[in-house]
């Protein structure tokens, strides 16, 4: 057994009672990916309507006391939270897409595509409209409730998650809830609508530190769920009977693997609004570029997602400056061709 594993490039990393199965090759690739995301993030920091040279940005980041007030304000209070938010939300969406695709065994599955975004959106909107005094920290909690309810509704209607019908029904449900959102927007008080619009368009420009902290918290919770169940779901891919025989509690596993992605997606939607297609694209790119077991897939997919959103946001921010295009729209323009490509590859089966 040990020899077989070593032959396939796996190494065991153990520290006391905790041991980890690791493939140095994948680990290195993931590090390269992480470095690339970091490089994009640093590259995006100097650019903007107020250009700050890169050395000054680094100086401001490392020694905030020495920088001028302007620079400190722009780097620390405007650009850094925005970039961190892009990375966090992208990572959350990438994680959720990877987990959802493996649990449903459906390469087109993405929590964002089946109405979770809209369900979370309805709940967050009603929070903004009916309880305007409640702080932003509650938005993800409410959004998660909505997202989970919608996801369960879609599963209840579609029954079999491995079929393409699941996606179709999810799209129908998301249409219904997006009409409900528009209904909200046209009837509610105009001042609430303005608050809501800022959040709704999937733009990252409203990112502030409290929101970043909230997103960090929930991404930690969600990734904890997904990573602790990663090994078991590797085993579950061998088929239900084998997995049962090897001691996997399938019911708990599939619920955790289903709820985790939904929670992550709703949390990211509650923080940054409508950002589509990341959860669909990132896992496919990760599988293509790196592959490997669940842990590797989750990690690389999260990194890919972070990179994607970061690029989409920077393009939307800089390409048509001084006008800004919300990252959600850039993501849709990039993402639909990808979705079409996935459909095209399935053209003999649909």
């Amino acid at each position, binding site marked *: 057994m040990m020899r077989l594993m070593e032959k396939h490039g796996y190494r065991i990393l153990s520290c006391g009672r905790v041991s980890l199965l690791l493939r140095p090759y994948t680990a290195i690739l993931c590090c390269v990916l992480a470095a690339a995301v970091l490089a994009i993030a640093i590259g995006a920091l100097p650019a903007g309507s107020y250009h700050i040279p890169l050395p000054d940005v680094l100086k401001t980041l490392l020694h905030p006391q020495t920088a001028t007030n302007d620079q400190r304000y722009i780097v620390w209070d405007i650009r850094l939270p925005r970039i961190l938010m892009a990375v966090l939300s992208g990572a959350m969406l990438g994680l959720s897409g990877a987990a959802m695709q493996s649990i449903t065994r459906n390469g087109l599955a993405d929590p964002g595509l089946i109405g979770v975004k809209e369900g979370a959106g309805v709940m967050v909107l009603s929070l903004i409209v009916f309880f305007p005094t409640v702080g932003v920290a509650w938005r993800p909690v409410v959004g998660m409730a909505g997202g989970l309810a919608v996801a369960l509704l879609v599963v209840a209607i*579609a029954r079999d998650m491995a079929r393409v*019908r699941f996606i*179709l029904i999810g799209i129908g449900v998301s249409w*219904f809830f997006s*009409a409900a959102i*528009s209904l909200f927007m046209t009837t509610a008080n105009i001042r609430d609508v303005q608050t809501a619009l800022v959040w709704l368009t999937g733009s990252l420009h409203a990112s502030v530190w409290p929101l970043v902290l909230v997103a960090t918290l929930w991404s930690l919770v969600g990734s904890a769920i997904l990573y602790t169940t990663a090994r078991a779901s590797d085993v579950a891919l061998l088929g239900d009977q084998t997995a049962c025989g090897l001691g996997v509690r399938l019911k708990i596993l599939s619920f955790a693997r289903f709820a985790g992605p939904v929670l992550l997606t709703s949390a990211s939607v509650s923080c940054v609004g409508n950002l589509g297609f990341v959860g669909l694209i990132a896992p496919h790119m990760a599988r293509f570029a790196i592959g490997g077991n669940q842990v590797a897939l989750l990690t690389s997919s999260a990194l890919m997602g972070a990179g994607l959103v970061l690029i989409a946001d920077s393009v939307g921010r800089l390409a048509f400056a001084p006008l800004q295009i919300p990252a959600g729209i850039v993501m849709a*323009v990039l993402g639909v061709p990808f979705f079409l490509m996935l459909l095209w590859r399935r053209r*003999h089966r649909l």
Partner: protein
Amino acid sequence: MTLGLFLLLALAVIHLGIGARFVGPQTVITALLSYDPTNFDHKIVVDLRLLRLLSAIVCGAALGVAGALLQSVTRNPLGEPHILGLNAGAALAVVLATATGSSWLAEPLGRPLIAAVGAAALFGVVLGLASAGKNGLTPMKATLFGVAFSAFASSLTAAILILDEQTLDDLRIWLAGDLAGLTYLALVNAAYVVSAGCAVALVLAPYLNVLALGDAVAKGLGVNVMAVRAASLLAAALFCGAAVSIAGPIAFIGLVVPHMVRRLVSDDLRLLFPLSAIGGGVLLLAADIAARTIVAPQELATGLLTALAGAPVFIFIAARRFR
């Protein structure tokens, strides 16, 4: 059909009656039959509300027939201008034309025809991609490609509107799928286009009936399958172009109506087309009445109400008829 026409008339009278000032049914009928310019109620009905009524009927009829046409051509129970991407294509074409300041928009038939070209182009791509593969044109592929292209076109539309403030200002109300703020000129232009589409559809109906038996049988019976498909694509695009040019993208009318007619009356397309036209008119009128009364004195966009009511139908059909 008589019942349908009766229903349409009744709804039309109600539609003309309600509003900020309620006008009784009798007054509405006398206003239409013997118009008295000095009577205030008559002025409201004829000068202010008649236009909206007529646009709703034309628009609903166009969408109803377009849905029936698309469902029979693609053999897809989910065939509908919104789902298959025609509405989004039409909207994108109009927005592009407005943003580039195209002089064609000023021509009398410009807007409906530009919209029709957009719808035809996007739907042509959807059909082409969906026909690829071993199984030919399957409903699942047509629907998924349609949805994807629809999303693509609407995100492009959104991007253009953000980048070009002037276009946004010109088209903001129109894009929500609303029947407010129309002109007689736009209505008349759209009506021409709709009648052209109706003529094509009625000529095509017998051939499409044969086509429903399957491509091979239709070929054996002497029907030129490709030509019929192309002509129905053209007709559907004309309908969508007209409907979108009047009221913006309105969803799901074309999905619901043909299913209802087929269940209640017949699936002979020669009957289905006219009945879908009437049914579409009835449904859009009902939706418009609801949009104007539910939160009166405020008004909802009509397209929103049809989307709210139509999405569950979509889900129901997808759950029942797709594997």
